[in-house]
């Protein structure tokens, strides 16, 4: 459902009276604010080739429709990382009437950095001082009036999770936007609609000062010599403005160029007269470097930090806050002595929850479907299509197919999404990443990958979506490939049902051990083979927070909705196809071509090969079908698999079933998350691996005299 950012924002602009962008550091409660304000109607958009998303939705304030653009959480607005680039581009393209900067009251200095950067770009900013409740608990008091005066903008204290202060915030933003438009009419005024513009191309620095009393802050505030250099550049930019120059104020552009911002440097360099300007920038930067002994870009960053720190010190009083439970929890989870046992317990809990609760729900939904919906559907299909082959094929699709989607979707996917959202929002995922980073580096991953990997043992599908916590495509491909090799609960059912219960538990354990080794081997191998290297870890550690149930629910719902939209059609079509093969009897013709591989290489009866094809729908189906097909082919004696398969054959069968192609829902989600080319490569890899390992196991077993 990813729209392009441009069209999503433009559509929003067409419908809304005002458009505000929400900007802020990661984990300051920006998403909570967005969700609380907009409910569940958000649209997700992204730029081509970028994984970082922007959320767009609208809300109402009195009679006004207000469009909100939720930018990715970032520490700054440079062009140095993808999230920062997307956040800045979202502002430039969206040209919001006002940017709402959300500040974390518990870490004001660092948060002010980005606000200052927004102001430097000449953008109209209204600030929300969020998490004031948490700051108070820590003994931090903020003088909001003074902060507002120093920044020259409205500052509204908020507690986003409770919705406190949000209406005041929106009203403040609306009056700021009105003031900027020079629009003095009362609420509900239609004249506001469509009189677009917001942050225009030029002339912002002067600012409007309408009825709202909002004005852009006086710009000069860094060191005197720096401001002199900037003034010189502003004069040089003046005549060029309006001519294909990017939509930021002259002062903003001067600062960006001094900071050697790659995007703007290129834009200006290509503009008419831009070369000359860039020469002047070069000289200006050299003057700053000569005066301060460090690069101009770094000097500006330092100045901005200095200003942010000074403002924060001036408006905040830090009392002696006692150590909070959250801080103690945090210490416990990052210290190796206590952290590793806690991690193991958490992983066990996630696994158990998926395995036990997921299985339970899966069984429940399955039987409910069979008892309630299935007969009705069958009746309906037979009523429409009669009793022929077509009707039988049709029952495969909606009946078996939807049941399969249901059995995987709701019990595993939904519960895992919920767990993942909880772990993310609580801040625990960061502790996990910290502790396991070294280990995961050996597989070209970093610490955050461990949660999806373990979740894969419940169900691969949500686990693959869970790899979104990783930052690069390389990491996501490696992690997804490894997840596919982790035996999920359905494959475990086959291992237990066909092997452990019939032949002996040691055989079952052997399959698990073997797949564990394959995961480790594949990880280390992929790390060597895949181009690129694992990125260095720089990650802020957030204090623990009790996640808001509402935010988690919304997050879970969005991800789940995405999954259903992608997986359901593929499962439906896939099951119809398999149904057609089965009901038309074509399936038996396939056993001929399969024979060389199945009988010749793996040493399995061809009929077992057929069930492996069907298991693509759902892995545990392999076992049921094996019994069914065996009854058709060998007669009633075949009800126990041992009648026609020896223990080593069952071992090879369970092994191959565990390793080769993930089920159809996994294929769907691989394609959606990584692209179909990468998905196809992963599928081909697992088939090759399954055949290699299966054949190898057969020959080893017969060599040691077990075959």
């Amino acid at each position, binding site marked *: 459902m990813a729209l392009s950012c441009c069209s999503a924002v433009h559509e929003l602009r067409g419908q809304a009276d005002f458009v505000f962008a929400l900007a802020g550091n990661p984990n300051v409660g920006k998403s909570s604010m967005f969700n609380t304000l907009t409910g569940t109607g958000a649209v997700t958009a992204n730029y081509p080739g970028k994984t970082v998303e922007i959320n767009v939705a609208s809300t109402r304030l009195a009679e006004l429709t207000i469009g909100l653009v939720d930018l990715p959480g970032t520490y700054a607005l440079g062009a140095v*990382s993808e999230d920062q680039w997307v956040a800045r581009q979202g502002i430039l393209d969206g040209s919001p009437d006002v940017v709402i900067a959300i500040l974390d009251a518990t870490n004001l*200095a*660092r948060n002010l950095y980005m606000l200052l950067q927004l102001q430097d770009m000449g953008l109209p900013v209204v600030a929300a001082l969020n998490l004031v409740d948490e700051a108070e608990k820590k003994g931090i008091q903020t003088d909001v009036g003074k902060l507002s005066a120093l920044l020259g903008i409205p500052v509204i204290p908020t507690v986003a999770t409770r919705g406190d202060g949000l209406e005041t915030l929106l009203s403040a933003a609306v009056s700021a936007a009105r003031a900027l438009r020079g629009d003095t009419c009362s609420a509900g005024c239609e004249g506001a609609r469509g009189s677009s513009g917001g942050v225009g191309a030029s002339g912002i620095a002067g600012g409007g000062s309408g009825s709202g009393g909002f004005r852009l802050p006086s710009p000069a505030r860094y060191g005197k010599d720096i401001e002199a250099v900037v003034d010189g550049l502003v004069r040089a930019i003046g005549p060029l403005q309006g001519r294909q120059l990017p939509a930021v104020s002259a002062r903003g552009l001067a600062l960006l160029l001094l900071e050697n911002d790659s995007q703007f440097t290129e834009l200006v360099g290509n503009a008419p007269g831009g070369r000359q300007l860039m020469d002047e920038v070069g000289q200006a930067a050299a003057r700053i470097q000569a005066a301060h002994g460090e690069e101009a870009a770094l000097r500006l960053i330092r100045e901005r930090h200095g200003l942010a720190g000074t403002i924060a010190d001036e408006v905040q009083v830090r009392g002696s806050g006692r150590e909070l439970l959250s801080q103690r929890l945090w210490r416990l989870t*990052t210290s190796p002595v206590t952290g590793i046992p806690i991690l193991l317990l958490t992983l066990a809990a996630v696994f158990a929850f998926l395995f036990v609760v997921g299985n339970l729900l899966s069984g429940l939904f399955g039987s409910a479907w069979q008892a309630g919906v299935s007969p009705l559907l069958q009746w309906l299909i037979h009523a429409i299509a009669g009793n022929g082959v077509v009707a039988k094929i049709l029952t495969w699709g909606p009946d078996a197919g939807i049941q399969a989607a249901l059995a995987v979707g709701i019990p595993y996917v939904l519960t895992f999404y919920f767990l993942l959202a909880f772990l993310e929002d609580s801040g625990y995922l*960061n502790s996990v990443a*910290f502790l396991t*980073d070294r280990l995961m580096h050996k597989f070209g991953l970093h610490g955050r990958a461990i949660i999806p990997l373990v979740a894969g043992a419940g169900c691969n599908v949500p686990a693959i979506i869970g790899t979104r916590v990783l930052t690069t495509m390389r990491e996501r491909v490696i992690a997804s490939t490894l997840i596919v090799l982790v035996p999920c609960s359905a494959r475990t059912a086959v291992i237990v049902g066909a092997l452990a219960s019939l032949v002996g538990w040691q055989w079952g354990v052997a399959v698990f051990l073997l797949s564990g080794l394959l995961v480790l081997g594949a990880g280390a191998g992929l790390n060597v083979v895949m181009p690129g290297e694992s990125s260095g870890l720089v990650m802020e*550690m957030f204090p623990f927070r009790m996640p808001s149930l509402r935010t988690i629910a919304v997050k879970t719902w969005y991800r789940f909705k995405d999954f259903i939209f992608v997986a359901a059609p593929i499962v439906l079509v896939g099951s119809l196809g398999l149904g057609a093969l089965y009901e038309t009897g074509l399936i038996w013709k396939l056993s001929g071509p399969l024979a060389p591989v199945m009988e010749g290489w793996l040493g399995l009866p061809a009929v077992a090969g057929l069930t492996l094809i069907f298991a693509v729908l759902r892995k545990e189906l392999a076992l049921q079908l094996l019994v069914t097909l065996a009854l058709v082919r060998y007669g009633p004696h075949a009800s126990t698999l041992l009648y026609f398969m020896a223990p080593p054959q069952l071992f090879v069968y369970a092994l191959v079933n565990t390793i080769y192609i993930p089920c159809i829902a996994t294929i769907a989600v691989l394609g959606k998350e990584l692209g179909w080319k990468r998905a196809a490569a992963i599928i081909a890899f697992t088939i090759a691996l399954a055949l290699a390992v299966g054949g190898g196991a057969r020959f080893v077993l017969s060599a040691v005299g077990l075959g």
Partner: protein
Amino acid sequence: MATPIVEEYLEAIYKLKAAGKALGTTELGKELKVSAASASEMTDRLVEKGLAEKVPDRGITLTRKGQKAALELIRKHRISERFLVDVLGMDWKDVHDEACRLEHAISAEVESRMEKLLGNPATCPHGHPIPDRQGRTAEEPVRRLSGLKRNQAGTIAKIAEEQRSLLEYLATLGMMPGSDVHVEQVAPFDGPLLVRVKGATYALGREIAEKIWVKER
């Protein structure tokens, strides 16, 4: 006169010692990208020449003679870098490798004429001090952040990162020369460090912590 290889060893030992660690052949080999065995062999040659010695507890150290040779080399390297940037107009990011070749080639005469032409600069383009002819340097002892233990603190002296985007990213988080860092926790198995900078806590991977040099407080 020492060969370029000998000079490279002297330079490497000097730099690693500046980090304030006991230095073994494994570490030295790692720095110069050679095996520990060849580093050990070369160290023995340096000892023979009276340039280095092996001191119990402190590992390989330079003798006064070795130290002087190393500083002379560093001086030539940094003057060459200045020359490449200021006179030839090369980008400061690209000059390190060029200077590595020049430092072995130029004579004392060329070196002092270059210095004069440049107007006796105090630092190289990367901000490191240029030692004077007697080998005196304003450089304070610094060590890698990755070498700090739990609850140790320091002030960032420099960040030896050539990649601009990472350097800027760290700077926006407040990790730049002059900032104080406090190590709160070190992950097991040589894992990342938890550091406190400007009121926020970050997990830093080893490879990044190794590039950050701090003055211990």
